[in-house]
């Protein structure tokens, strides 16, 4: 059940992940320069940054392979923030029709 029982990732695996992160970042920046994508820019960018977020959390921070408790502790905060502040921003008239 502990990380020791699984085959440990090698440095080469970590470099591979870094390359993926680099590629996604490059894609994100490119999207901002392509006018044709303007209408779907927000969705594309948020998806790509969410992917990077998940990759770093899951693999570099090892959350994918670690105890469920760590994941629960973190997810509680991670999920609470957008829900609470989504409500606050909605009350200001933001986030709708964006």
């Amino acid at each position, binding site marked *: 059940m502990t990380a020791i029982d699984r085959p*440990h*990732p090698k*440095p080469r695996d*970590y*470099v591979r*992940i*870094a390359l993926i*992160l*680099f590629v996604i*970042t490059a894609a*994100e*920046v490119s*999207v*901002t320069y392509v006018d044709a994508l303007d209408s779907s*820019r*927000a969705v594309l*960018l*948020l998806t*790509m*940054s969410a992917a*990077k*977020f998940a990759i*770093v*959390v899951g693999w*570099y*921070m090892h959350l994918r392979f*670690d*105890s*469920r*408790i*760590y*994941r*629960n*502790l*973190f*997810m*509680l*905060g*991670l999920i*609470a*923030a*957008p829900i*609470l*502040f989504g409500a*606050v*921003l909605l009350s*200001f008239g*933001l986030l709708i029709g*964006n």
Partner: protein
Amino acid sequence: MVVATDQTEHAGHPDPTNVGKVAMWAFLGSECLFFGTLISTFLLYHNTTLDGPTAQEIFDVPFTSVSSFVLLMSSLTMVLAHYAAGRRDWRRMRVWLLATAGLGLVFLSGQAYEFTNFVHEGLTVTTSPFGSAFFVLTGFHGGHVAIGVLMLLATTFMSFSGRLHEGQGMNVELVGLYWHFVDIVWIVIFTVVYLLQV
């Protein structure tokens, strides 16, 4: 919810690595609310620019992209440091820890340069709510990076001074979790503040 797995077979002898990680992940969960609040304040004010510069006018996306890349790479060096610590290769661990700290300092210098430019171009904390929210958000993030750099240097120092007790590997892991978190906060800030130019 957080009905924990029954740890009772290990009870009475808590595993120090697990203890540290529970604490760190709880703290990081809390930090999600901290940065969530700062980001939301920014989102509220992103268009309240008064007579001052707007996001489109002042942001230099190529420059900030390089900054983001630097911080992403520092996560790579951080995880390599942790890997070395796990194999008790202390020399290599120190190299990667210092590399991470170095990249963190490069990031901070980039922020300092960027902020100085913004001030010259007329955007300060007092110019507009947009300015206030932008600088406070990125300022707190930069403060977190700075604290991370200090922790990396402190861990390196402890390794040099021969504090190679069993807890060494655990310290690097916890510092790593903090450092990666600071990186993922930047991932969100870069997208929401700079790229979305909402």
